[in-house]
């Protein structure tokens, strides 16, 4: 770009001579030379001129201290030139149409016509400007001595700068005849009109506009030439921004009325690119950010919420239909206008909670119908016994499937949003936080989330991971961990996890000990040591039990007492503290104080128990072993004699190996001592085994009603649940195709969703536990702080328990009251705010 020349550079000063005294005639002579030279320069005839002669003329004048006169004369010359030669040409290009357009009336003229006349005008202006620059460069050259000496000494703007100002005042600000308009108005209006044509899709001559913009960037409001006072910035840009604002306001309103959010996003994006290109090719880069702001304000911010709410294309539809492109654009647009991304955050959070609550609702509804159905079946179907058990099973299985489905649905939702977040939202941290919170919110709204997540893990560890690669297993564990992170009531989760883990371990249902350990170490990382020590303890018990079993076997072999009918013992020794005894079954054999009602073991078993106990206690003095009859199972060899007079299978002796629960074994051994045809009554069996009635009835149902392992007879021979008064005998005519038979277990061995009552038990136990935990935490805090205001205490308790569960305020209050009653705390008398004091 051409800028003022003749400024700067070293100063060459002539020696001062005393003789210099100006005389007028001499000045005029020299000026004549200069003046005619200037005329030649302006008419592009400079090639004939002698630079030395002209330079000398100006040199002489300045030397004679007549620089001011010369300066003024040059200015006058320029002004005259503009007035007589340049302006008339430009004026001739300003057609009445152009004036009309500038005044706001564009009717009756086609775009094409407007473009033609406009271009002519711009071209004329451009030519005049370029001529001006050329002539002024040459003028500066010949007047170099004046610039260097006179202008510098007198602090005058160089003649170049001054002439630029003259161009501004005499060309651009020249008033048009018969109106208030100046050339500049026409210029702005023509350029804006062309840009508006281009926005409407026409092709315009960008280069010509660009030239005129260059000119405006080279001109300033004053001769000081402040960068911020470029005419481009002071005059053109505001007009451009205003016009653009109007345009985009209208465009956005039209889009809002006629289009959908998707079109709006694309159009806005297009406009942003377009304007950016425009600043590069047509106007100035100086405007790049400002015009972007205009679009952001008019196209994005102004109607954002309306577009987001659009039915069928708004954010709801975008999320529903995975419209990644739309969402990406939306994210980009919102990021432009709002660094907090509040509108997007809110919309996403709402969607997550909505969709999540839907998942919750679906499951809750399914659940209720099933539970109700199962309960009714159970009560009403005493007579239709056959259908009862399987039906209950399926109801439970269905519920468990529903639980797994809930988890799957939640995970799918999570996947969906994760994918969206990665693909469209640039993994934005602010949005991630919002999403996490929303997930946590709806998951914790679902009362059974802890149970279901644990069941999900149970399901996978039981066989779901069978045949999966390590990576796939990792993915499953990742999912489980993610869910776990969301769960607020970690204590509830721990309760269920222990329960489910216990079943997996004791019934040998766990698919891989390695994966079990991986899961535990993940939980350790996520929740902490305290959470997993008991779980790890359970594993330790299992390993220890394996060693014990094999150790005991070797021990027996070494005794060499081979005569005895040997019972092979596989044992699990469980540390009381680690295992969730209350949820491992056997509740009917527990007294109110929680101790076990021991079952009366058959002699053979008692001997075995004694022998094991001796072996076990040899190295572990002082421990107490309790035998839990409701757990475990036994393989029994039974032989059924041939029955005289019968054909087929019954005519041969049949041997079967039957796997029955431990209680089953205790019952069956009673029948060894019976004579043929002798029976035992329900009551007799009960008194000889001490098995609780409910368990006994269930076990007898398995052994005397269910056809699969019907090794006993029942009198009356109905399908009803065995009850006191019934009589049982050895079923000599039992047949089965299989040699090894597994007696079906009615309930208990499978992890499934808890029924309402069981659920309530679990919650009560958990609440009780929470009460103790809250007590402990309150006492610990108060012991350290001695006195503490009510609100502070509560905040601190909630804070300390946050990783485990969210304490209920009512419960906390009750704990405080109870601590006051037990004289751990007292209320501080006369305190401004309610305060407690610790009583040591």
């Amino acid at each position, binding site marked *: 770009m051409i800028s003022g020349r003749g400024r700067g550079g070293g100063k060459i000063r002539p020696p001062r001579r005393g003789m210099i005294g100006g005389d007028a005639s001499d000045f005029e002579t020299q000026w004549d030379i200069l003046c005619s030279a200037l005329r030649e320069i302006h008419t592009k005839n400079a090639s004939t001129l002698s630079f030395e002669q002209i330079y000398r003329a100006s040199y002489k004048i300045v030397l004679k201290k007549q620089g001011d006169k010369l300066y003024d004369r040059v200015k006058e010359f320029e002004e005259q030139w503009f007035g007589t030669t340049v302006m008339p040409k430009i004026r001739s290009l300003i057609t009445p149409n152009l004036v009309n357009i500038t005044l706001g009336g564009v009717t009756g003229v086609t775009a094409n016509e407007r473009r033609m006349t406009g271009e002519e005008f711009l071209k004329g202006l451009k030519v005049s400007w370029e001529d001006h620059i050329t002539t002024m460069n040459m003028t500066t050259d010949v007047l170099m001595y004046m610039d260097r000496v006179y202008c510098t000494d007198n602090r005058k703007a160089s003649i170049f700068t001054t002439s630029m100002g003259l161009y501004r005042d005499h060309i651009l600000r020249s008033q048009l005849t018969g109106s208030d308009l100046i050339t500049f108005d026409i210029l702005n209006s023509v350029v804006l009109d062309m840009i508006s044509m281009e926005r409407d899709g026409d092709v315009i001559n960008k280069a010509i506009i660009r030239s005129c913009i260059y000119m405006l960037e080279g001109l300033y409001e004053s001769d000081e030439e402040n960068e911020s006072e470029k005419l481009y910035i002071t005059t053109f840009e505001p007009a451009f921004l205003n016009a653009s604002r109007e345009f985009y306001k209208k465009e956005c309103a039209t889009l809002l009325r006629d289009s959908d959010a998707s079109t709006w996003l694309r159009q806005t994006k297009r406009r942003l690119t377009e304007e950016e290109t425009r600043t590069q090719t047509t106007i100035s880069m100086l405007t790049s950010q400002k015009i972007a702001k205009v679009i952001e304000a008019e196209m994005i911010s102004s109607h954002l919420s309306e577009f987001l709410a659009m039915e069928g294309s708004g954010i709801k539809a975008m999320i529903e239909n995975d419209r990644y492109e739309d969402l990406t654009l939306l994210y980009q647009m919102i990021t432009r206008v709002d660094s907090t991304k509040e509108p997007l955050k809110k919309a996403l959070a709402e969607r997550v909670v909505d969709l999540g609550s839907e998942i919750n609702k679906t499951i809750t509804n399914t659940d209720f119908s099933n539970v109700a159905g199962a309960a009714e079946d159970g009560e009403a179907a005493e007579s239709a016994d056959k259908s009862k058990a399987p039906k209950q099973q399926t109801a439970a299985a269905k519920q468990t499937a529903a639980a797994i489905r809930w988890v799957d649905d939640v995970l799918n939702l999570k996947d969906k949003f994760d994918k969206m977040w990665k693909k469209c939202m640039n993994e934005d941290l602010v949005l991630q936080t919002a999403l996490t919170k929303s997930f946590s919110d709806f998951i914790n709204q679902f009362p059974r989330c802890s149970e279901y997540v644990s069941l999900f893990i149970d399901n996978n560890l039981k066989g779901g991971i069978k045949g999966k690669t390590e990576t796939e297993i990792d993915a499953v564990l990742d999912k489980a961990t993610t869910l776990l992170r969301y769960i607020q009531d970690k204590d509830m989760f721990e309760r269920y996890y222990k329960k489910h883990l216990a079943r997996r371990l004791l019934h040998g249902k766990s698919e891989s000990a390695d994966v079990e350990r991986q899961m535990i170490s993940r939980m350790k990382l996520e929740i902490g040591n305290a959470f997993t020590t008991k779980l790890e303890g359970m594993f330790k018990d299992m390993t220890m039990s394996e060693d014990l079993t094999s150790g005991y076997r070797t021990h027996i072999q070494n005794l060499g007492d081979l005569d005895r009918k040997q019972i092979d013992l596989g044992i699990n020794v469980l540390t009381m503290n680690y295992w969730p005894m209350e949820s491992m079954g056997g509740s009917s054999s527990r007294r109110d104080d929680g101790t076990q009602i021991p079952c009366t073991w058959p002699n053979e078993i008692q001997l075995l128990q004694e022998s094991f106990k001796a072996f076990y206690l040899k190295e572990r003095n002082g421990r107490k072993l309790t035998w839990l009859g409701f757990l475990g199972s036994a393989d029994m060899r039974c032989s059924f004699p041939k029955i005289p007079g019968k054909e087929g299978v019954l005519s041969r002796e049949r041997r079967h190996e039957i796997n029955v629960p431990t209680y089953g074994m205790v019952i069956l051994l009673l029948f060894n001592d019976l004579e043929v045809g002798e029976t035992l009554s329900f009551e007799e069996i009960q008194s000889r085994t001490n098995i609780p009635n409910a368990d006994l009835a269930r076990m007898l149902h398995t052994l005397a009603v269910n056809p699969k392992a019907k090794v006993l007879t029942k009198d009356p021979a109905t399908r009803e649940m065995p009850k006191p008064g019934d009589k049982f005998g050895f079923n000599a005519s039992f047949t089965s195709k299989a040699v090894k038979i597994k007696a079906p277990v009615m309930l208990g061995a499978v992890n499934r969703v808890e029924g309402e009552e069981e659920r309530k038990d679990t919650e009560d136990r958990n609440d009780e536990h929470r009460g103790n935990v809250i007590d402990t935490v309150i006492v610990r805090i108060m012991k350290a702080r001695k006195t503490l205001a*009510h*609100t502070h205490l*509560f905040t601190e308790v909630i804070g300390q328990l946050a990783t485990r569960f969210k304490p209920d*305020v*009512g419960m906390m*209050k*009750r704990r*405080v*009251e109870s601590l*006051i*009653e037990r004289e751990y705390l007292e*209320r501080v008398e006369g305190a401004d705010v*309610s305060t*407690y004091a610790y009583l040591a």
Partner: protein
Amino acid sequence: DKTSVNGTMRYFQDLGLNLENAEIFVPLEIVQAPQLAELSKDSFIEGWKTVGADTIPKQKAYVASQLKQLSVDMALFKRVYRHAFVCSKEPNQKALPLENALVYWEMLFTSPGKPWVTGSGSTTNWTNLWIEFLKKKWTKTVNKDMWNQTFEFFQKTMQDDTLSFWSEDGAWPGVIDDFVAYVKQKRGELPDTMETD
């Protein structure tokens, strides 16, 4: 060292007291009686010595003057109120049976005690509300904290019977929270969520 039931009663009659209302609690507080009908010698002498009344007529006069103050001097009323709990429970118990507590509340919160009523023309009879509420909803005994906090609540309501001082984040015992809900519901300030009986 201790008086018998009959002796105590006769002594109170000598002081000219009505044993059926709050009057009885005034001398009980002065002599820091461990039991309603049992005065201990040490605290009896100590108590009267402090107020400088060594003869029955003097004591009678002193009690009479205190009685006049009872419904005005809140510090005095609070002392009497608090001691009422101490001497009316069984010595080895930590709490009062509800029915007893209800009787004592009624005695203390009516003249010559401080009537627990607010509003011009005594529109809200808190004593009645409190007793009615407890009879309906409270099944447990009354411990010291509940007894003392009831007094705090009584004082607050006397200053502001709109209950605006109450907040669910406050440190009131649960029973007071429930009572507030009960009163608000009665006043129609809460949606009727409980069963109406």
